[in-house]
């Protein structure tokens, strides 16, 4: 029967979903600030990769303990969503456990749900412990782990625990009410049935608890959904497209700028006709910067990367530069890109980027320039990279930190000629004698002198 409660529910749900759609549109707009890049090739290989890396959590299993705990939360999220669907239907139509007609399947589903919900609580408590008590270095340290990222992680974990407790409260009260009224509730509840008496025997109180538990769970989910775009927890959505669109070719292959190729070919051969430049809407040629100075010089995929980042710090913890005390942290590169994008473009409901300057982190000598380069990421960080791909390899959601580092470096060199002096000397050597060292090219074949091998009989 449809009552006032159902109408309130409908309004709350519509508001929640509407707000979420509004935020997603902002994020989409931000990502599309980026340069175009074609990632529509090889759909079957991309789907396989998505199944393995995103759905299958393949890269998480490089570290066993967090992988297993994360798996509880991940599978819990997927499965409990089926019950959320039921909650939605019940809420709209005033039904009660509408999927109960599924019989034994519903029994199994509810049982799995309850066990997973309990495991989610266990996992979240351990995660909180790792962040706040044992302070696992990759989670607790790093210049980019400022007030917001630290609080964000705790907010999510506590919310997840509250949501699970709300679900249990609802199930326990519902179960007890059914027992008091002598009818059988559809479903099996291995956890709630052990605690069935904790709320007493008063039918009125139980009905209130069931109702409050139900409402907390549903409002919690809607609130959580709207918190996502402001949070590292957005990865639960972005991980899938981000893995799908990830780089399929060898990690060692860096991008080649065709505009430069045309320039060189025209230089070497005056008869070479470079293709006409792309025009903008007003018919003016689009002049692109070489490399990246700001977010619009990166591709949409690089911007998508930054919305996918879970801030887990695996990249930074394996970075040879970071391990040896250099300023570079691949996670910071990705988070800076997101912060700058939201400063320049749109920003979601809750999140307002807070800058390093505000916290006064001395070592990162950013300037007041309103650009990604220097305003957020300093040349010192960029020049510390060995391009070893350890960060890319370690990322569970296939973020390509290295491509962003390289594009920023390219800007420094190609547009500002701002490479360290020793690298400029190396460039000069290559130009003059075809080797990065100052050896005359006529000596290149000297290694072959006086070389002997045993003669065969």
């Amino acid at each position, binding site marked *: 029967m449809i009552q006032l409660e159902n109408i309130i529910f409908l309004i709350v749900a519509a508001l929640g979903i509407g707000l979420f759609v509004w935020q997603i549109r902002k994020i989409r707009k931000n990502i599309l600030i980026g340069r175009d890049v074609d990632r529509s090739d090889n759909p079957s290989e991309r789907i396989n990769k998505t199944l393995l890396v995103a759905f299958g959590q393949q890269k998480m299993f490089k570290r066993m303990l967090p992988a297993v705990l994360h798996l509880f939360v991940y599978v819990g999220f997927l499965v409990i969503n089926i019950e959320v669907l039921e909650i939605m239907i019940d809420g709209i139509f005033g039904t009660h456990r509408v999927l109960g007609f599924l019989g034994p399947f519903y029994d199994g589903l509810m049982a799995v749900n309850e066990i997973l919900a309990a495991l989610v609580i266990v996992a979240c408590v351990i995660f909180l412990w790792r962040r706040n008590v044992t302070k696992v270095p990759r989670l607790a340290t790093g210049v980019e782990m400022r007030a917001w990222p630290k609080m964000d992680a705790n907010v999510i974990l506590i919310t997840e625990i509250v949501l699970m407790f709300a679900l249990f409260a609802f199930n326990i009260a519902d179960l007890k009410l059914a027992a008091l009224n002598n009818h059988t509730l559809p479903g099996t509840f291995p956890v709630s049935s052990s605690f069935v008496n904790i709320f007493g025997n008063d039918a009125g109180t139980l009905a209130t608890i069931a109702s409050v538990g139900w409402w907390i769970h549903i409002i919690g989910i809607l609130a959580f959904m709207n918190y996502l775009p402001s949070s590292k927890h957005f990865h639960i959505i972005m991980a899938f497209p981000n893995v799908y669109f990830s780089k399929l070719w*060898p990690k*060692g292959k860096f991008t080649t700028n065709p505009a430069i*190729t045309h320039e060189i070919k025209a230089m070497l051969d005056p008869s070479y006709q470079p293709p006409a430049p792309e025009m903008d809407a007003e018919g003016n040629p689009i002049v692109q910067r070489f490399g990246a100075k700001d977010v619009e010089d990166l591709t949409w995929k690089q911007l998508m990367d930054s919305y996918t980042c879970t801030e887990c710090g695996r990249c930074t913890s394996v970075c040879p530069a970071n391990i*040896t005390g*250099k300023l570079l942290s691949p996670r910071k590169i990705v988070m800076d890109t997101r912060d700058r994008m939201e400063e320049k473009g749109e920003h979601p409901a809750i999140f307002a980027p807070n800058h390093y300057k505000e916290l006064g982190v001395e070592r990162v000598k950013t300037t007041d320039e309103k650009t990604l380069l220097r305003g957020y990421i300093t040349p010192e960080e960029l020049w510390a990279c060995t*391009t070893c791909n*350890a960060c890319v390899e370690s990322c569970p959601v296939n973020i390509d930190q290295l491509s962003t580092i390289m594009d920023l470096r*390219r800007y420094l060199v190609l547009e500002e000629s701002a490479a360290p002096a020793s690298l400029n000397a190396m460039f000069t050597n290559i130009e003059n004698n075809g*080797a990065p060292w100052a050896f005359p090219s006529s000596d290149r074949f000297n290694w*072959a002198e006086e070389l002997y091998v045993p003669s065969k009989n």
Partner: protein
Amino acid sequence: MEENKRLVKVPTMAEMAANGEEPEVLFWVGCAGSFDDRYKRVTRAFVQILEHVGVKYAVLGTEESCTGEPAKRAGNEFLFQMQAITNIEVLNAYNIKKIVTACPHCFNTIKNEYPDLGGNYEVIHHSTFLQQLINEGKVKVQGGEAFKGKRITFHDSCYLGRANDIYEAPRDVLAALDADLVEMKRSRANGLCCGAGGAQMFKEPEPGNKDINIERTEEALATLGTGDGVIATACPFCMVMMSDGVKNKEQEESVKVFDIAELIAQAEGLSK
């Protein structure tokens, strides 16, 4: 011994082309292999192996030039493409189809980055090439120095490993030595960089609390334990960084750094 060895005349592409011949494979020596005194020994060891098995090979000699790799990693795309396009003209003029190189940086660049600029070749790294020679029985890994029971640890090159997913070829080559192979904790896909990639080879490191090659050398030394041991590499930059690290730790008496080609040449009795 003098009468048992012959002088090698390394064939160049220019000579081969003049005689209307084509090599089976072009050996791309690379700048380190041409100029760095330590890595010239690796180049020579690899040529000894090529001569020993009778592969029809050639080098570009003085016609070879930097692939442009360090310029590209340093962000100088213009200089990179300049080098690449010029090299591709030379390679295509000689109708080169197959290239072997002992440098993972040259390997990665020619294999992955030259095709976009019109250079399409079958490119293999010398670790894969040596693995094939051993598998085909052309290199028997006998007649020279015995490595049985010797402790060897292999340091993965980033541009061979993560960049191109080649982890087993160099290990298979080392396995043929019948030595005591020990793995560092950070190996294969989790290998730690030597610190030289991304043009770091040509500059001072940024401020920090340690040099990357020291961090890696400490790990290698801890893995090898006490006594004599070998750090095996398959990259000229790794060779420099690990050798410097061993020197810094004053272990150069007991721990040697060798390229896999040198170890094979020693085991095959080619480098007497």
